[in-house]
């Protein structure tokens, strides 16, 4: 673009544009460093700007009132607010514009606090100059902004819950009660997942079977929950509000349409390798789930009667170290804590000792992580009952050897001067950790983010634990992270809450900042498709790229690689960005 034509195009835009610029003091957060009066004065002369003001708190009702008043009485039709981060108040000021009858997207927010006064405390003059440039760029951008409308997508009032364990059942029940049409998909022939094998669960000591029956009863009382047993998900496509899920139920395929997905696919137990702590070389070395089965069996048959001594080894398949432990197929070890094994193990030892107080128990641990309210009491009780705890150093592993009828467990013990201890026992229980179930079909189809621990990566580990970046997909329970029964129920229900929120209005409103392709400029090179992070967001139609707005997140990766400049993101067009760069680089 030549200078002259650029000049002309600017004039064209400015014919009916009246920009209002508002510079906020943020108490003194901004104005202590940045000369806000100078900034406002400077902008008042800038082409296109009709009103330029500064005020102590733009976000206060009086501050917002100034903007509304200017829109109504002075004909301001574009607004630039220079204040804090848009994360805080972008929505506030969109509301201000709406109240004054202006399209809420004819507003640009400039962050002169986090990107101005807070980071340039030591150089007030430069901070002031930087603010001016940023605001000028915003004026250039908003001058080139067209009114935008939120994208509205119709949403099916139905949800697929994938995985019928406690998280999935809790989610399905919560959603069913809200009146949604729920498809609860479970690969086994009964709901419940790991509940089926929990027997008596801590801390209530209630039978897992009883919990399961209660949940099943509640679920079956609702006729809007469709249960798919012995069913697997083969393919998922579509987007928020309109997912299509292919299920194979007992061998026969079926397709369902849903508005949202709740993924509660749970976990599998870590299976030790052959020879790991002598596992599989003798039947006397068992895993924690095996031991729970044995305890259950013992209740009827007394099968543990002759086992006089048992050693428990913690952190098998958890908190691993690549230099000491054998990796999984993906060449990674499990470096995370499995959260539940400590409490579960101590609870099972307690059960064993309640029946057989004379059994000798040795516990080889690294840290006892009995974090829950009642959990600590198991630890205390067992210490009193004579369970011997040995703490093995992180850089060693206990050794298990078969010695005739017995097993010998050798380990260093930090608690006794790093002494080598050795015990002979009748049985060794490996406290095996958890790993996420294999859901590669779902992960691939939905391009779900996966963490380095192989669990589904949530949108934010603190505040958005049941969401992923893709709208309409929620995760709950142990598909997200190791957790116990109760925590999984919370997770499933929290995911249900999010899905319910999304679909409660029957229509989903999405930000309008999405890409679009000018077919006249597109030469069909497909580079944009290769760059797009969101599956299906760009498709080819008649040799031209086309954006599906509901799937596009407006990241702009496609626009950046398009060599014919055929792609623009609404609200961030190439022309707008060019103009901003020009304004900033101008001395």
């Amino acid at each position, binding site marked *: 673009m030549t200078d002259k034509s650029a000049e002309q195009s600017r004039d064209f835009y400015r014919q009916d544009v009246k920009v209002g610029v508002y510079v906020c003091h943020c108490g003194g957060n901004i104005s202590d460093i940045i000369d806000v009066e100078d900034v406002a004065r400077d902008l008042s002369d800038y082409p296109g700007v009709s009103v330029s003001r500064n005020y102590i708190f733009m976000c206060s009702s009086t501050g917002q009132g100034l903007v509304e008043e200017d829109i109504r009485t002075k004909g301001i039709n574009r607004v630039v607010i220079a204040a804090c981060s848009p994360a805080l108040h972008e929505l506030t000021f969109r509301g201000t514009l709406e109240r004054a009858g202006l399209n809420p997207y004819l507003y640009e927010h400039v962050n002169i606090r986090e990107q101005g006064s807070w980071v340039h405390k030591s150089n007030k003059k430069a901070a002031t100059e930087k603010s001016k440039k940023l605001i000028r760029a915003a004026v250039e951008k908003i001058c080139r902004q067209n009114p935008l409308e939120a994208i509205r997508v119709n949403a099916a009032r139905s949800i697929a819950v994938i995985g019928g364990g406690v998280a999935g059942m809790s989610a399905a029940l919560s959603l069913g009660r809200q009146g949604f049409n729920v498809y609860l998909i479970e690969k086994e022939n009964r709901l419940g997942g790991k509940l089926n094998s929990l027997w008596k669960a801590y801390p209530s000591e209630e039978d897992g079977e009883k919990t399961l029956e209660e949940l099943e009863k509640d679920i079956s009382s609702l006729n809007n929950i469709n249960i798919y047993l012995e069913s697997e998900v083969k393919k998922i496509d579509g987007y928020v509000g309109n997912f299509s899920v292919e299920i194979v139920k007992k061998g026969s395929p079926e397709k369902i349409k849903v508005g949202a997905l709740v993924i509660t696919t749970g976990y599998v137990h870590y299976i030790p390798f052959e020879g790991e702590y002598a596992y599989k070389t003798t039947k006397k070395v068992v895993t924690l789930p095996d031991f729970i089965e044995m305890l259950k069996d013992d209740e009827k048959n007394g099968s543990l009667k002759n086992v006089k001594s048992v050693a428990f080894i913690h952190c098998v398949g958890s908190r691993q170290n690549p230099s000491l432990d054998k990796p999984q197929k993906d060449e990674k070890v499990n470096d995370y804590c499995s959260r539940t094994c400590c409490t579960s193990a101590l609870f099972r030892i307690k059960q064993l000792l309640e029946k057989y107080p004379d059994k000798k128990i040795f516990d080889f641990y690294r840290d006892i992580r009995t974090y829950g*309210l009642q959990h600590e009491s198991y630890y205390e009780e067992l210490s009193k009952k004579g369970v011997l705890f040995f703490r093995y150093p992180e850089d060693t592993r206990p050794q298990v050897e078969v010695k005739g009828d017995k097993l010998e467990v050798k380990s260093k013990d930090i608690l006794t001067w790093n002494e080598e201890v050795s015990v002979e026992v009748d049985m060794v229980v490996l406290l095996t950790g958890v790993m996420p179930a294999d859901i590669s079909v779902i992960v691939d189809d939905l391009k779900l983010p996966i963490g380095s621990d192989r669990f589904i990566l949530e949108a934010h580990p*603190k505040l958005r634990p049941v969401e992923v970046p893709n709208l309409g997909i929620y995760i709950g329970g142990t598909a997200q992270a190791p957790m116990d029964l109760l925590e999984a129920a919370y997770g499933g229900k929290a995911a249900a809450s999010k899905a319910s929120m999304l679909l409660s209005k029957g229509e989903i409103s999405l930000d309008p900042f999405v890409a679009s392709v000018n077919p006249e400029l597109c030469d069909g090179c497909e580079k944009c498709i290769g760059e797009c992070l969101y599956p299906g967001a760009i498709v080819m139609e008649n040799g031209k790229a086309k954006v599906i707005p509901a799937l596009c997140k407006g990241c702009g990766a496609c626009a950046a690689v398009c060599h014919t400049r055929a792609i623009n993101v609404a609200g961030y067009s190439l022309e707008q960005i060019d103009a901003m760069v020009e304004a900033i680089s101008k001395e």
Partner: protein
Amino acid sequence: MQAEKMETDVFILGTGIAGMQAALDVADAGKNVVMVDKSPSIGGKMISLSKVFPTLDCASCITTPRMASVSHHKKITTFTYSEVRFIRKEAGRFRINFVKKPRYVIEEKCISCGKCEDICPVLIKDEFEQNLGAKKAISIPFTNAIPQYPVLDMEHCIACGACARVCPAECIDFSQKEREYELTASAVILSTGFEITPMNAKEEYGGGKFKNVISPLQMERLLAPHGPFSGVVRPSDGKIPDSIAFVQCAGSRDKSIGVPYCSRICCMYSIKQAQLLSGALPLADMTIYYMDIRAFGKGYEQFYQNAKAMGINFVKAKVGKIEELESGNLRLHIERQEGESLPEEVEHDMVVLSQGIRPTPEENFRNINGISRNEYGFIHLPSVPTFPNATGIDGIFAAGAAVGPKDIVDAVQDAGSAAIDALNYIKRTSR
């Protein structure tokens, strides 16, 4: 005085992270919410933290947008600086009586300019800064408080009238009275949070007595970018500490102080603080005296391993007692539970007592008919795990640390869970 009458779908007591999350979930599903908090700002304890584990996100930066969403939400009404007198279930609905305490500021007129605060001549302790700094007798609770209305501390006000004269909005009202509200709600969520075990719970540690034995919340403020001293210094003399100790389980896992359970968060916040201190004070030594490191949440173990790799010392030892030396330093009598298990004396410039979590006082629940508490004093949940947020009263649900120690992410999950329960209760009872 006539109580103002209001109606809503869900009433939420407590505006910490659990309460805010529950409110947003309920309101986004289309129901109206009224929230009450005794503090003058929403945001709970999370807003006063420096950063959060294990992401090391700035707590303000992730909490403030949540607070803003709550306060801007058309379906959420918040009452801060207010106290609930009773919650009663009557004819299937809930009657909630609460009073809004006088700020001595007319909120409808206040423009939050802060001029009253600037001119006020009286300095008082700043609770938000954990008493490490001072504030004016009339002041906005903290920088990013919501709402941004000042509170006048009548107890310390000298009635000089300077604030009233300087106020451009004429909103200072020395004769303001409390306002009573009578709310009818269809469902209730209790997210009343937790308290911290007192600093003097274990007298032998000198908490509350020795100046350089500080609380973890004080350390949070020292580490916060907008904290009281813009840096980590020790309270006794302003010296930059060279060696800082953390005493784990100083308020947990100890029957003698009435907290037999593990408080769940202390290991992680200490590891986080030690990591942040390594950044703030690259030359200082950090030592964590612990019983077990309970890094059990997602990404926590890896965070712990990183801390070890950064050179933070983890010593498995019991701390018997702490003495204050003339220099202000602290002498810790420890018994190592590793290596040579001999009693030992070690000296540090500053000590953080890793206090635990305890339930909020009983009077908070006394006037909620039928709410029972478990043996530890937290709200009792009779129907776990099938109905895990239900309290003893149908229609009242509990979330967050009000039911037991929880970290932020667990409180957030559990709040979402309580929200859908409340929505389902309304659906069931309105048929």
